[in-house]
């Protein structure tokens, strides 16, 4: 390696202060280390201060998504509807996966499963790219970095609300009228949102270090989807097979299955508590708490390092 530039002239009388003094000087005048990680409590406070930014950013992303399309924001509703139609065509009509579920219940069953799982799936995928895909923003402005994954999870929550409109249409079209039990959807989805945010935070940190995860995660998530009973009922599928009964419980206790079952339980009359695993609400809350707390602390631990590419 040869230098092309001429050697610059030597610095005349280097004015650098005696180096041991610098830290003392800074301490004497109460200067703080730039870019240092705040304490956990302080971090929560900073994040709360940025709540308007987090909300505005998520809504901006949501709007920008379809702003070039001719139908515009109509796609917010059309996309989940088409998604559900494809799954119904494949699994309902071609493969007949509706084993153990009454025919007229299968459509809402499937649509609910697809929407609820998509909520978690897209939160994780957005989380992976939350930091690595927004390095420009991270390197230009100061804000608690958790704003980004939280904002992306919030964007998916808003997307889900559009999907819920579609779900209500499907429900009414298949003959059930709105009932008070539908309100149970609210706590179920809130818990799922906390769970998703936790996952998004974990994957945001991992993705910032290893962007390759963006290539890997779609396959992991697809496997998870097929194992969670999105298009079939887990107990009905395992019924009569030579598997221990605890296996059905374990499969049903996986967080994605729990949240799907809760929303189905709330929305579909015929989907009674016999389809639910024991302690379902406790598990729903437990998963949310576990993912939320671990995700937040894990993300905060690397707060000062996210600017590095």
């Amino acid at each position, binding site marked *: *390696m*040869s*230098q*092309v*530039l*001429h050697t*610059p*002239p030597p*610095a*005349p009388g*280097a*004015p*650098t*202060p*005696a*180096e041991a*003094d*610098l*830290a003392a*000087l*800074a301490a004497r*005048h*109460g*200067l*703080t*280390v*730039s*870019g*240092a990680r705040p304490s956990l409590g302080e971090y929560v406070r900073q994040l709360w*201060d*940025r709540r*308007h*930014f987090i909300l*505005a*950013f998520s809504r*901006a*992303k949501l*709007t*920008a998504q379809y*702003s*070039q399309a001719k139908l515009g924001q109509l796609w917010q509703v059309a996309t989940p509807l088409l998604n559900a139609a494809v799954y119904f065509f494949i699994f309902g009509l071609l493969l007949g996966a509706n084993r153990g579920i009454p025919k007229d219940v299968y459509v809402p069953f499937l649509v609910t499963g697809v929407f609820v799982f998509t909520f978690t799936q897209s939160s994780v995928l957005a989380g992976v790219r939350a930091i690595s895909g*927004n*390095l*420009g*923003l*991270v*390197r*230009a*402005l*100061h*804000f608690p970095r958790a704003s980004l994954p939280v904002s992306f999870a919030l964007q998916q929550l808003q997307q889900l609300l559009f999907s819920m409109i579609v779900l209500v249409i499907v429900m009414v079209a298949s003959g059930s009228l709105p009932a008070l039990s539908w309100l149970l959807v609210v706590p179920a989805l809130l818990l799922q949102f906390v769970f998703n945010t936790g996952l998004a935070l974990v994957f945001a940190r991992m993705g910032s270090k290893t*962007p390759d995860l963006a290539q890997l995660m779609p396959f992991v998530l697809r496997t998870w989807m097929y194992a969670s009973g999105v298009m079939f009922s887990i107990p009905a599928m395992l019924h009569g097979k030579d598997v221990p009964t605890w296996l059905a419980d374990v499969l049903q206790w996986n967080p994605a299955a729990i949240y799907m079952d809760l929303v189905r339980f709330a929305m579909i009359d015929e989907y009674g508590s016999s389809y639910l695993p024991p302690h379902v609400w406790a598990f729903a809350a437990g998963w949310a708490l576990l993912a939320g707390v671990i995700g937040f602390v894990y993300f905060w631990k690397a707060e*000062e*390092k996210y*600017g*590095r*590419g």
Partner: protein
Amino acid sequence: MADSSDSKIPTVVADRVDIVYRVNGTGAGRGSATAALNRMLRRKQAEKAAGVRTVHAVRGVSFVAYRGEAIGLIGTNGSGKSTLLKAVAGLLPVENGRIYTDGQPSLLGVNAALMRDLTGERNVHLGGLAMGMSREEIKSRYEEIVDFSGINEKGDFITLPMRTYSSGMAARLRFSIAAAKDHDVLLVDEALATGDRSFQKRSEARIRELRERAGTVFLVSHNNKSIRDTCDRVLWLERGELLMDGPTEDVLKEYEAFTGGTAKDRKPQPKPKAVPVPS
């Protein structure tokens, strides 16, 4: 600078700062699939073989900036000026050393937070929030920002998506949003030259205003004239090292001799130690 005059209040102290970038995917194998496989199999050949290269962008830089100073950062392309500025702002982690600051220094610029597909109006809102302004602050400054940008001089453009703006218009709006906030320690990275002549004049005046209100100003620029106009002290960086630190005239004279003297044989050759400066 470390004279005994404790009457001067330091606002930024850089203590032997090193900054290193790690760049993925620049392995010796020119990135072909077989080379990548080869690298995966021969694990032990450390980072270099794994396609990770390190770029030492800033080396052992120390300085103290005091309240009321306007400091220019000069140096040829890729000398680490912008990188150092980002580290002062706390946006890039340092490898070694420490940077101490009084309060939170901020870079002038919100480009990264704005979205092309949103209207100018929403971008003003979003950019303001991203910079940490409150909703009330943005509301009260909104008219001022739009008027300053002059976007609406040629019709109601503020309600159109930013992708429909000409590059000059977009640059003007970006500057107007960024300059709407007051800062304790203000870091400006060659933001002066945006827009047409009349807007340049206005933005220079606005920067002077911000300067007067800010405690300390850092300005990165290749325009020696704007450094002379704005700064009373200059740091000269070359290949990541602090070469000179002193009064503007002294440093600029040396710098002009250095760049001017080599101007004849400075062909556009690739520099051996190119420092990637993220924009």
